[in-house]
Structures are given as structure tokens and as C-alpha cells.
């Protein structure tokens, strides 16, 4: 071996060592060749150059390795065969941006389409995030639970498994439970109440307040922002009256004056001292205080108050579970304690049929959110469907566009751009479009969330936490890029399947498009999604219309309603007019209060009739009398009969029809025979159609069973809401029942904005301290119960409308594009004698075939999808054939309209021009 060749071998060995820096797969594939080239070059340079040239060579080789190293590693790590060789992604970005800028119309349509889907999804997601996902704003929120009483019938709220249907618990039961339970670290009681203040300017005022037991502030981790919380002795009836105010009321009512602490406020009948201001970030649990009912005044709950001695439902519990105790364990324990209590203290706990009141609890988050998740799930699903449709629509557009660019891609591929490179370019374009679309979508989401919050029914909890924030934006970004890239990938992969040369040679001329199958799937898919959304919207609208069309059982036009608490009225009257003789019997005092109120209202000019009831229609009945019908044993428990006490003129004032028998008269007084009216549903469900007139039923009260004679039958009147359907009801004269609250109904021909102030003034005459509550029109009350179904119908309807337009645009665009590319074919056909009508039929047929296939697919999907709507529908089955038929008809028409223009354009082809162009 010569000196030269051994030097070369040594150099190659060193070079090989250098190559170990490269990834192993790179070395395996090329290192032999690379070493060979190095050997040749080194050999040449050493022979001709000398030491300097050799050093220069080494320098160059090291530089060479350094330069090619990153690319080699990049491609190895990506697992791809290619590095960034033919150009960096920055270059791709430039090229893609340039290419998009040349077709702004195309770019805009894709971005808007994507934006619509992304905007809808982002907006709804931010609502879901705020309402469902975000933790409650307290320490260790997962250990917080709501505690309440549980009726023996129906443990789960609205059939939602795992969510107990809690109601208020009586103070004796609460205190016993608190004594016996071992599951809680601490437990607080909360009672909602009102207080009457007369310490500031504009006269007396009713304000929302909460009575809370000593543990509450500690459980919520709230320390006073100013002043102090309550002392232990202040939770006793014997103590001075104190209260705390919220930050908001401190600012609004007391101008943020720090000297407010220690100030005495005039609470009607009770001078009370403000001892502290709650911190600004204090958030009372929404499970107990919906956002529009946040109490401003906080009062210590004095458990030894006389009011609490009776087993009356008053309060909810808020507790923190012991570490390691699950909600299920605590529930089991609560069930055992409730059973014990029913045995030891039957009054108010045990029922005649052997069942008893239970005690239940829910996680505070679950209690707050309730069953809202179902509705939000449907909203999110609808938004997701819209996004899917938008993505398919964008993919169709991208596909059409790439077809037009086949020639450009052919040239690019011929010039050394591989398939991967073309795909990358197309993906970059799709990426840019999705970023623009995403930005547009986020704008839409901001507007959408604003609109959602504005129109959403207040029954949706936690709306104050809903915001488009960084988390939501991150989701939006992922969704946008994902959607855009998916749409881009679909068209790019499909397009680059053919080799470059076929592409260059045949581009734009071929009769059959290679992508027509995929496009048909995309267009049909959009149609299918539109069918699902439209059907959902149609069902919700149909349901809403049926709810609106339910006969309420009275004439709502010209009815004004108002409530007055007679017990309070007496307290106020005693307070304001202390001279008065010995009080009448409580029940007489109550109905005399009714008379005062109704007389005062009846004297208002423009009032044609006035009457009173214990509960209005479209309001939860507050009285469920226990009735025993002839043949019932004393432990019979008839469920769900609503009781109403009404004044004699009530039916007439309301316009409710008396079907049989007689209405109440003045003579049906407290000393006369006890009488009652029942409604049609009562006759149907409780009496199985037997004639009720003169039937004597018994109302049990404690151990007594008071006989009542049924004297008439009235038509059904809606109770809480129209969609719950007709329910049994019994009416008694107000003078034979003690109703603490009178709901007055006033019939007038005057417009509401004229009469309402007059009525308010009249109310001020009998109660100068406390303004009347619920003063408004009956129509307003009815509308309020329909906010939720209306909102659902509107929201899904908006999605469906956008979906239909997008699907129609997709169909139109795709067909128009295909027609444009087949000009030559149509020319040839017509040159060979095809009739225009035939060509028109052919194109129309092609478009409609795809659309109809989508329609059929959508219908099948609809049957499956709309089942989730079942619990939201009233009077409509989820697969209501009429709705599906209408949706189908609408989409057939829309499809035909979308196909017509392109089809006509096809027939307008002039064969001569087309053939000349060959």
C-alpha cells in the first residue's frame, strides 16, 4: 500500500467518524456513496494541491456536514424521506399566500365558510366551558355539596340519574341531621328571604336577603372586606339584629362609604346594625341564588327563632364533605338518618302511606348546573354538525380549485416538486385559509356569545362565567387548524394521485373528472347534515308553536296580574297604624286583607273586573291539598292535584268557562257548607269520568278529614307551563281557605303601560311600605314560560338556516364548476344532435341524484339523531313524519334551485365555439 493510499484511507476513516453525527438511516442509505465521493475528491486534492488544499478541503467538508446535518435530522425525526430540501416552509407560506391572493373570491368563500362553522362551535363551546367545565370559584369545589329534603316520589330531578331532586328542608330536620351526620367537615343552612328597608331616599324598599348559619362564610372561604362577620351569639334570636352587605350594595347604596360599618339601618320593624361588607369577589353559590336573585343583604340565621319550630320547609344546606367521603356514601348515610327521623318525629316527615321525607344531597356543581347539560350538549352537537358541514363545504371548494390548477401542479411536479411537496403547498394554503377563517370565526364567536348571553333564558346557570378567553381561543385555534388541514388534505391527497405528465397533458380536458366521486360524497354529505339540523330545528319550532297554541283555559288579552302578601300587609298595617282593636281570627284577617286589596284595585278607573286567586296560571301551584275521594282509605295518597282558592268573580274575570254546575257565590262564606269546583282533568284522571256534581270529597288536614261538596266543573287551565299538559285541579272559595298571598287579576281595555302605574299607585294606598310584586301583563307571564323552548328553537334554527345555505351553495358551486369544465363535452353532445332539454335534464339529474342521496342519508341519520331531542319536545314525536316531509320538500326545492342555474348554463354552450377552441 502506497503512502498516498494509506493517507486517503486514514482521511476516509476520519470522515466516516464525522458521518456518525448523521441519523443512522441516513448513514445506511448513502454513507457508502458519500465516502466514495470524499475518497475521490480527497485523493485528487492531495495529489494536485498539497497541505493547504487538503486543509481547505477539510474545512469545506466540515462546513458541508454542518450544513446538511439539520436537514438530515429533521427528515429523520419527521419520519419522512424528505427534508426541507426543495424549500423551507416559509417559502411555502409565501407561495401559498401569493397563490391565494390571486383568487381573493375563492379565498374569501373558504374562509367565511370555515369561519361560520368555527364561530358557531367556538361560541357554544365557550358557553359549555363556562357553564359546565369551569370549576366553581371556591376552594376544593369538588367536596362542596348541596343538601335538601327529598320527596319519596321520584328521586332524580327530571329523570337525570345521579341528580337528586332536592327541595327545602325543615329546620328541625336540618338540625337533627347536622347533629347525626358524620360525612361532613362542616354544614351550613341557607334560607332565602326578603327584607324591607326604609333607610335611604326613595321610600321603603324590598330587597333580597339570605339568612345563613355560622358555617357558611367559612365554607365559602369568604372573609369580610370591611368590618366583621357575625359573632356566634348573633346566630341566636336573643341577640341584637345585625346584617352584612355585599360589595355591590355598599357601592350602590352607600357610595362605598367605609363608615357604613356600625351604621343602623331602618329595617321595617327591626332596627338593624350593619357589621360588615362582604369582599368584592364574594360569589354566593348559584345553586341557591340564580344570578338574577343574588341577595344583597346577609342576616344570621337564628335557629332558635320561633318560626323554625314547625316542620316547615325553609332552608337548603351547603356542606363540605370530609376528605375521602364520596357523595354516594354521604347519600347512604343521609337516607339512614332520614328514616330514623321519620320514626322519631313523624310530624311533617312521615306520610300516611308509610313513606317518609328523605334527605338527599348533590355535588354543588351538579346542583348548580342541573339538567342544563342536556340542552348545552344539543347546542354543541348542532354547532359541531355545522362545523362538519362547513369543513365539507370548504373541502369541495378546495377540491374544485385544485382541479383548475392541475396544469400548474403538473408543471411544478415536472420541475422536481414531489407529491409530498405539492401536498405541503396545498396544506399550507388550507392552513392559511383556516387561520383567516378561524380569526373570522373568533370574531363571530364574540358576537355569538354576546347574543347568546342576551337571549338565553335565565334558567341556564353560571352565564356570568361565560367568556371567550384564552382557553376557548386555544380550542378555537385547534378546531380551525384541524378543520382546515382536514379539508385541505382531502383534496390534496386525492388530487396528487396521478403522475405529473398525465396531469400536464390531459389537464382540464378530460371527460370524466378523477375527483367526481369524492365531490359527490362531499356535496351529498353536506345535504345530509343540513337535513339533520333542519329536522332538529323543525321539530323544536313545531314544538314551540304547539306550546304557544295550547288553549290556556282563559282569555289572556287585557289581563294584568299582581301579588300582595296579606300577612306582610297586616304586619305593615299594624306597624304603620298601631291603633287598632283586637285582631280578628287569622283566617278572617287573611280574606279580609284580600277584600281590601281587590276593592282598592277595582276602584281604579279603567278596571272592568278584578278577582283574586292563590295562584295564577303559568305559575307553580303552591297548594297541593290531600284529598280523599269516596271509597278512599285514610292512607290513600292522591298525587299531583293542585289547589286554588279563588274569589267569586274569578272565572268570569279570567274568561274561564264553567262547564257544569254553579260557580262560587258570596254566600259560600266561612260558615256555609264547604264547596269546591274541579276541572276536566280532575274528572278524567281522579273520577274516571263519573259525574262529580254533588259528590262529597274529604280534604285531610292533620288528623281531620273535612268534607267538601263539589258543585261545578270548569275547563282546564294551564298550571305551570303549557307543555306539561292538563292536570287535575280543585278550586275552593277564598273565604273557606286561608291564603296568605293574594294574586289579583285585573281585566281592562286600557293598554298595560297606562293601567300598570295606576294599579301601582292603588297598591301604595293599602300598603305604603312594600311595593306590589309581579305587577305585569298575563301575556308577559306566559311569554316568560316560553323563553326556553323559543330560545332552543331559534338557536338550532339559526344553525339550520346557515347549514341549508351552505349546503345549497356547496351543491350549486360544485355543479357550476363541473359544468364549466365540461363545456366541450356539452358542445360535442349538442353538435351530435343532443337536445337542449336533454342536456338540461342530464345536468339537473346529476345534481339532484347527489342531493337526493344526501337527503336520504340525512333522513336516516335524523331518525337516529333527533331521539336526543325527545325531552325537549311537546306534542311532536322525534320522528314526526310531517316535519321530515316538510324538511325534505324544502331541501328538494332548494337543491333544484341550486342545480337549475348551472344546468341552464350547460345548455347555453355554443357547439361551434367549443369545437373551434380544440
Amino acid at each position, binding site marked *: 500500500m502506497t503512502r498516498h493510499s494509506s493517507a486517503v484511507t486514514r482521511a476516509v476513516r476520519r470522515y466516516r467518524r464525522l458521518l456518525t453525527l448523521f441519523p443512522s438511516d441516513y448513514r445506511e442509505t448513502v454513507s457508502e456513496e458519500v465516502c466514495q*465521493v470524499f475518497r475521490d*475528491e480527497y485523493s485528487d486534492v492531495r495529489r494536485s494541491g498539497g497541505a493547504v488544499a487538503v486543509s481547505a478541503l477539510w474545512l469545506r*467538508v466540515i462546513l458541508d456536514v454542518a450544513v446538511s446535518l439539520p436537514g438530515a435530522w429533521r427528515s429523520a425525526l419527521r419520519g419522512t424521506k424528505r427534508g426541507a*430540501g426543495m424549500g423551507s416552509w416559509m417559502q411555502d407560506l409565501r407561495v401559498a399566500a401569493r397563490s391565494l391572493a390571486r383568487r381573493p373570491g375563492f379565498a374569501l368563500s373558504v374562509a367565511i365558510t370555515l369561519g361560520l362553522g368555527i364561530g358557531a362551535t367556538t361560541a357554544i363551546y365557550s358557553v359549555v366551558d363556562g357553564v359546565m367545565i369551569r370549576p366553581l370559584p371556591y376552594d376544593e369545589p369538588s367536596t362542596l355539596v348541596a343538601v335538601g329534603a327529598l320527596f319519596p316520589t321520584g328521586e332524580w330531578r327530571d329523570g337525570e340519574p345521579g341528580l337528586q331532586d332536592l327541595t327545602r328542608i325543615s329546620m328541625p330536620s336540618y338540625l337533627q341531621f347536622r347533629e347525626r351526620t358524620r360525612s361532613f367537615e362542616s354544614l351550613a343552612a341557607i334560607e332565602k328571604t326578603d327584607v324591607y328597608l326604609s333607610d335611604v331616599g326613595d321610600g321603603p324598599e324590598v330587597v333580597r336577603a339570605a339568612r345563613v348559619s355560622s358555617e357558611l362564610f367559612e365554607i365559602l372561604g369568604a372573609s369580610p372586606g370591611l368590618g366583621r362577620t357575625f359573632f356566634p351569639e348573633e346566630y341566636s334570636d336573643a341577640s341584637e339584629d345585625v346584617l352584612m352587605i355585599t360589595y355591590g350594595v355598599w357601592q350602590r347604596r352607600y357610595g362605598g362609604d367605609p363608615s357604613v360599618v356600625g351604621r343602623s339601618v331602618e329595617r321595617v320593624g327591626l332596627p338593624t346594625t350593619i357589621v360588615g361588607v362582604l369582599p368584592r369577589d364574594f360569589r354566593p353559590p348559584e345553586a341557591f341564588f340564580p344570578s338574577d336573585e343574588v341577595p344583597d343583604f346577609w342576616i344570621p340565621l337564628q335557629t332558635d327563632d320561633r318560626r323554625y319550630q314547625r316542620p316547615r320547609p325553609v332552608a337548603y344546606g351547603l356542606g363540605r364533605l370530609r376528605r375521602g367521603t364520596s357523595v354516594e356514601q354521604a347519600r347512604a348515610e343521609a337516607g339512614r338518618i332520614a328514616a330514623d327521623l321519620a320514626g322519631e318525629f313523624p310530624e311533617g316527615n312521615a306520610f300516611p302511606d308509610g313513606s317518609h321525607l328523605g334527605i338527599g344531597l348533590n355535588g354543588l356543581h351538579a346542583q348548580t348546573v342541573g339538567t342544563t347539560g342536556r340542552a348545552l350538549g344539543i347546542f354543541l352537537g348542532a354547532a359541531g354538525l355545522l362545523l362538519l358541514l362547513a369543513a365539507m363545504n370548504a373541502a369541495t371548494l378546495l377540491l374544485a380549485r385544485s382541479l383548475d390548477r392541475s396544469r400548474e401542479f403538473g408543471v411544478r411536479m*415536472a*420541475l422536481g416538486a414531489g407529491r409530498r411537496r405539492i401536498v405541503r403547498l396545498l396544506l399550507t394554503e388550507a392552513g392559511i385559509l383556516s387561520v383567516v377563517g378561524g380569526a373570522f370565526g373568533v370574531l363571530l364567536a364574540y358576537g355569538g356569545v354576546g347574543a347568546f348571553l342576551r337571549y338565553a333564558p335565565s334558567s341556564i346557570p353560571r352565564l356570568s362565567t361565560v367568556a371567550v378567553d384564552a382557553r376557548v381561543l386555544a380550542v378555537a385555534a385547534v378546531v380551525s387548524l384541524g378543520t382546515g388541514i382536514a379539508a385541505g388534505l382531502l383534496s390534496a391527497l386525492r388530487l396528487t394521485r396521478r403522475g405529473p405528465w398525465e396531469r400536464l397533458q390531459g389537464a382540464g380536458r378530460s371527460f370524466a373528472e378523477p375527483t367526481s366521486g369524492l365531490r359527490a360524497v362531499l356535496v351529498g354529505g353536506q345535504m345530509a347534515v343540513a337535513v339533520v339540523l333542519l329536522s332538529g330545528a323543525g321539530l323544536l319550532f313545531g314544538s314551540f308553536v304547539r306550546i304557544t297554541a295550547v288553549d290556556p283555559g282563559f282569555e289572556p288579552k287585557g289581563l294584568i296580574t299582581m301579588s300582595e302578601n296579606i300577612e306582610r300587609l297586616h304586619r305593615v298595617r299594624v306597624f304603620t297604624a298601631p291603633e287598632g282593636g283586637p285582631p280578628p281570627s287569622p283566617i278572617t284577617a287573611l280574606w279580609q286583607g284580600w277584600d281590601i286589596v281587590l276593592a282598592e284595585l277595582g276602584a281604579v278607573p279603567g278596571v272592568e273586573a278584578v278577582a283574586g286567586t292563590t295562584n295564577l296560571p303559568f305559575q307553580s301551584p303552591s297548594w297541593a291539598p290531600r284529598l280523599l275521594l269516596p271509597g278512599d282509605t285514610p292512607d290513600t295518597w292522591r298525587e299531583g292535584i293542585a289547589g286554588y282558592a279563588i274569589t267569586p268573580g274569578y272565572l268570569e274575570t279570567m274568561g274561564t268557562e264553567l262547564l257544569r254546575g254553579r260557580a262560587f257565590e258570596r254566600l259560600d262564606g266561612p260558615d256555609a257548607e264547604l264547596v269546591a269546583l274541579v276541572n276536566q282533568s280532575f274528572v278524567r284522571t281522579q273520577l274516571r269520568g263519573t259525574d262529580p256534581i254533588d259528590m262529597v270529597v274529604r280534604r285531610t288536614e292533620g288528623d281531620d278529614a273535612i268534607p267538601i261538596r263539589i258543585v261545578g266543573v270548569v275547563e282546564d287551565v294551564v298550571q305551570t307551563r303549557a307543555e306539561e299538559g292538563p292536570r287535575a285541579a280543585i278550586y275552593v272559595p277564598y273565604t273557606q281557605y286561608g291564603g296568605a298571598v293574594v294574586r289579583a287579576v285585573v281585566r281592562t281595555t286600557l293598554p298595560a303601560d297606562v293601567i300598570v302605574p295606576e294599579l301601582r299607585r292603588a297598591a301604595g294606598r293599602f300598603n305604603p311600605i312594600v311595593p306590589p310584586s309581579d305587577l305585569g301583563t298575563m301575556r308577559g307571564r306566559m311569554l316568560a314560560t316560553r323563553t326556553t323552548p323559543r330560545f332552543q328553537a331559534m338557536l338550532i334554527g339559526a344553525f339550520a338556516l346557515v347549514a341549508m345555505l351552505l349546503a345549497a351553495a356547496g351543491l350549486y358551486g360544485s355543479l357550476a364548476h363541473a359544468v364549466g369544465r365540461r363545456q366541450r363535452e356539452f358542445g360535442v353532445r349538442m353538435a351530435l344532435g343532443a337536445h337542449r332539454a336533454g342536456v338540461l335534464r342530464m345536468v339537473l339529474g346529476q345534481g339532484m341524484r347527489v342531493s337526493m342521496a344526501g337527503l336520504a342519508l340525512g333522513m336516516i341519520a335524523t331518525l337516529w339523531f333527533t331521539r336526543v331531542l325527545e325531552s325537549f319536545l311537546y306534542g311532536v314525536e322525534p320522528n314526526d313524519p310531517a316535519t321530515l316531509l316538510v324538511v325534505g320538500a324544502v331541501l328538494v326545492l332548494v337543491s333544484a334551485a341550486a342545480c337549475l342555474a348551472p344546468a341552464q348554463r350547460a345548455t347555453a354552450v355554443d357547439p361551434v365555439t367549443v369545437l373551434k377552441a380544440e
Partner: protein
Amino acid sequence: MSVDSREEVAEVEPLRPLVFAILLSLNEQHRHGYGIMKVVNRQLRRRALLGPGTLYRTLKELREDGLIAYAPAPTDADSRRHYYQLTPQGRRAARFEAARMAAWVDVARASRLLEGQVGE
């Protein structure tokens, strides 16, 4: 293939000089790696290949893009060496690039940029 559309020329990115030079070096004859490097470095001078690493990355890409392919080695050749040849696509790409350049030269001529220097 003729280049008849200026838009099309503008639409497509030019080949990198290195790629063009490699394709040109293989136009007349098959070469092995070092042979290509020598020819290319002679032609490009200042923008020459740095070394074998860069060369092989480029050759690999061109091969994957179908512009060049392995060629049968001459009978006397070293078995460790791969020989390369142009594919029809590679030949067309190079011709397209040359045409593109020529088209630009035409543009330059039309704008009288080259007046008095080349051919007139």
C-alpha cells in the same frame, strides 16, 4: 413541450441553480457522484457544492422526485459507485427551465436591456 404562456412561467418557481446544474451535467452522459460534483463545481464556481453531504441530499431528492435515476454502471467501474442518469421527466424539467430562462432573455431583449451586447 413549449412554453407559450408567460403566466405559466411566472406561476412556477425556477429550479435552483444547483438542481439545474446537476440535471445539465447528466444530459450528455451518465456520471457517478464525484463526477457530478466536479462538473457542477466547475460550472457554478461561487455557488458550488460544499461537499458530499450536500450533493447526496440533493441527489436523493432528485431521485425521489423522479428527475434522475440510477444508471447501469460501466463494466470497468468501481462497484461501490452509483451512476446516475436523467429520466425523461428530468430532461423535460431541465428543458422547461432553459426555456423559462430563454423566455426571460426574450423579455429582456424586448425591453432593449441587452441592446448592443448580444446578437444585435
